[in-house]
């Protein structure tokens, strides 16, 4: 295996653990997986944030709030795939989990106004189309200004 820079190792470990367990790991779990000091892992989290590849938990740099498309906390966008449950950050990311894992998936989402259950599904690599729509409230230039709101 070619030598990889630390940030790449950390990034791959985050996604491998998440894919395997359904839970986004903290710095301790990543440190254990790749046998790197936890302080170095936390520093890598910060650099991956600068690259817009993850969002640390506000106030706690050892935890990950978002490793897009995965959420580090439960959200209104649970996704079932490969026999596991994940959480997506938004409806785009609900589809994103199916795209990232290259598998079928479905999400019991809900209407943003009424709360009515709205299931979205990827089957055989394609979306099961419904007349639903996603509303993008924030222009693309500002998505990372407040990613939790976006």
């Amino acid at each position, binding site marked *: 295996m070619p030598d990889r820079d630390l940030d790449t190792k950390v990034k791959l470990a985050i996604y491998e653990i998440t894919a395997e367990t359904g839970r986004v790991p903290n710095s301790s779990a990543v440190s254990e997986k790749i046998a790197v000091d936890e302080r170095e892992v936390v520093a890598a989290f910060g650099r991956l944030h600068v690259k817009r590849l993850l969002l640390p938990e506000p106030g706690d740099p050892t935890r990950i709030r978002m490793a897009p498309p995965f959420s580090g906390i439960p959200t209104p966008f649970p996704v079932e795939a490969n026999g596991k449950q994940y959480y997506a950050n938004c409806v785009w990311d609900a589809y994103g989990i199916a*795209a990232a894992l290259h598998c079928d998936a479905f999400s019991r989402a809900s209407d943003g106004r009424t709360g009515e259950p709205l299931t979205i599904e990827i089957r055989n690599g394609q979306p099961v189309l419904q007349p639903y729509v996603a509303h993008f409230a924030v222009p693309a230039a500002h998505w990372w200004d407040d990613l939790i709101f976006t």
Partner: protein
Amino acid sequence: MLLFRSEETVNAWCAARNIPRRPLVNLEQLWQLAVHWYANRLTVESRRPAPDEMVSIFASLGLTGPFWDPKKVDG
């Protein structure tokens, strides 16, 4: 971004919060966005699309204009 059953519920949601109606994306477009963004996310070479790539991806799906330009701060 949120999911809605229809344009009508989007309009009601925006009116209730006194925020402007922004662009809507259908599920086929949303799936294509997801594939562009995340299909290689678990690989060594994964990265977020660069701004110019984003513009091209959005345009390929019919999503054009300042709102979809990551370099247009007034989008």
